[in-house]
């Protein structure tokens, strides 16, 4: 849509001059298609937000801000405070991210920069296979195998060791349960690691050889080269990968529902049982009615808002740091 093409629309159609030629049909067609699909996505998102919000107005209006963010969830007495679930979602996602991100980035760096290509390929294949394990399978394995094992051979030892120590005690002290915030965090970490690894690996693989050679030519070791050349280049892409993983961890329903313990509590003890937003929706929706139902749908709206806020915030941070580094 340059000024040249708009200068004289009457002349345009028949004109043979390459400068005033209409843009090819395919070009415009593609532009329209891209715009339309972009708008469609936006419209669908808005519709989802509107309809779910409508169905939950009952809760929003009755409970009010204070009620919504109270920790008191008791359908029997019509108390529907969402705080314990928000808390559980945030805590388990944070644990998942803290575990998954270093592992994913390290594996991605190893696979692209260290491991010889002929070994890297089968490893990549294996990791991608992990990504297709259904989440319910992770949940079942978590609750049947992993939770009992980690409770008896890890949690209980740690808990008795740190009991009474100021900060550690309040994080890792008793009570101890196999199904807990921490177990849910670990299972979520395992679930998001493949995708974060895969995406990070792709980003890291696009770092131009010439950038890496620039570092090597200064006598950098491989690790120094990674810090100097690979990391600044892939930082944003990796953050993007982490955001996708975070979104998945926050929204994960069935695996979390199985291993988190299903008790609506707010506690700093990570080995205690908890609850999360998607888990409570899945568990209680079938039997819910009236305000209870509205509260569960409202919880969905909150979760939606929460993921959007986290995403925007993270993107803002990335944006700011890139702008600084690109010098634009």
């Amino acid at each position, binding site marked *: 849509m340059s000024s040249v093409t708009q200068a004289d629309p009457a002349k345009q159609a028949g004109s043979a001059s390459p400068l005033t030629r209409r843009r090819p049909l395919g070009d415009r067609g593609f532009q329209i298609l891209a715009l339309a699909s972009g708008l469609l996505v936006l419209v669908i998102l808005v519709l989802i937000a509107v309809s779910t919000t409508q169905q939950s107005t009952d809760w929003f209006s009755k409970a009010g801000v204070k009620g919504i963010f109270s920790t008191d969830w008791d359908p029997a007495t019509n108390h529907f405070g969402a705080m314990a679930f928000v808390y559980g979602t945030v805590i388990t996602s944070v644990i998942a991210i803290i575990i998954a991100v270093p592992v994913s980035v390290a594996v991605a760096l190893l696979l692209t920069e*260290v491991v010889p290509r002929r070994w890297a390929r089968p490893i990549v294949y294996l990791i991608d296979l992990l990504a297709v394990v259904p989440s319910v399978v992770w949940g079942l394995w978590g609750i049947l195998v992993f939770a009992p094992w980690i409770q008896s051979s890890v949690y209980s030892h740690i808990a008795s060791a740190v009991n009474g120590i100021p900060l550690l005690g309040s994080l890792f002290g008793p009570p101890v349960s196999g199904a807990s915030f921490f177990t849910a965090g670990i299972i979520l970490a395992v679930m998001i690691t493949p995708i974060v690894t895969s995406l990070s690996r792709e980003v890291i693989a696009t770092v131009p050889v*010439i*950038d890496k050679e620039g570092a090597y030519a*200064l006598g950098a*070791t491989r690790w120094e080269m990674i810090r*100097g050349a690979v990391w600044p280049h892939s930082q944003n892409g990796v953050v993007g990968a982490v955001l996708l993983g975070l979104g998945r961890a926050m929204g994960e329903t069935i695996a979390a529902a199985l291993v988190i313990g299903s008790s609506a509590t707010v506690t700093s003890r990570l080995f205690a049982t908890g609850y999360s937003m998607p888990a409570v929706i899945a568990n209680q929706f079938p039997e819910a009615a009236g305000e209870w139902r509205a509260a569960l749908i409202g919880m969905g709206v909150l979760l939606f808002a929460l993921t959007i806020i986290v995403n925007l915030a993270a993107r803002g941070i990335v944006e700011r740091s890139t702008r600084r580094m690109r*010098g634009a």
Partner: protein
Amino acid sequence: MEQSEQNVAAKTELPKPTALEQAAPQDVSGTPGRPIFDVRNVSVWYSAFKAVTDVSMTIHENEITAFIGSSGSGKTTVLRAFNRMNDLVPGARVEGEMHYRGTPLYGKDVSPIAVRRRIGMVFQKPNPFRKSIYDNVAYGPRINGERNRRKLDEIVERSLRRAALWDEVKNRLKSSGLALSGGQAQRLCIARTIAVEPDVVLMDEPASALDPIATGAIEDLMRELKKQYTIIIVTHNMQQATRVSDRTAFFSVLTDSKNDTRTGVLIEYGSTRQIFEDPQDSRTQAYVTGRMG
């Protein structure tokens, strides 16, 4: 990234005082004209492809040596053999002897990392890191363990001054190295290279993407730098070779039509004046008079 890369990993730390370390003088200025590299019968392979064959030459201290020759004749390949950059190319292999100040460059206990700290390289395409101008220049000293802020400031200023870039960037050291013009970016890369006080600077067509003024600036810079460093430069610009270099090596491609192979060879090596005014080989003569390539 197979064998050669493992090599890098195995020797991430500088070996204690190796022969290499002792050989290189700490005060940079050396004796002009003294041999610094001795290259004997060097061939370089990329997997099964022999890219250059049987190169023998002596490089002299505090001189500028130019590599000229047609495209594909192996100039870059040979240049990269001098600081073991070819180690990073999977399947690349160097045969023959290369001595740097008496130490075999490809010797068993020589770490390519230590080699590259002594023998820096400027690439054809400016490749500043995605970091600030300051951090670009400070990168080398930092990986060498320099943490002192004031010392780093000094090094950055000195290197940028020597690369004739200081005046243009002194007020925006914190802004990105990517926000520079091509010529500025190339001078930043030169500053980055000399910030680690190397002994030798290898330059692969450093001015090929630059306009005549920026090229002139870089040539002035090279003449200035040669007081302290030994420089090897690959160039397609024969005027440039005559303007800056003391010695010139002319490379060409031997084509074997039977096996359909093309191999780079060093045709003639001598003082720049001799190569351009009195070439001994007819191919050199054809090339420098512009009748070929």
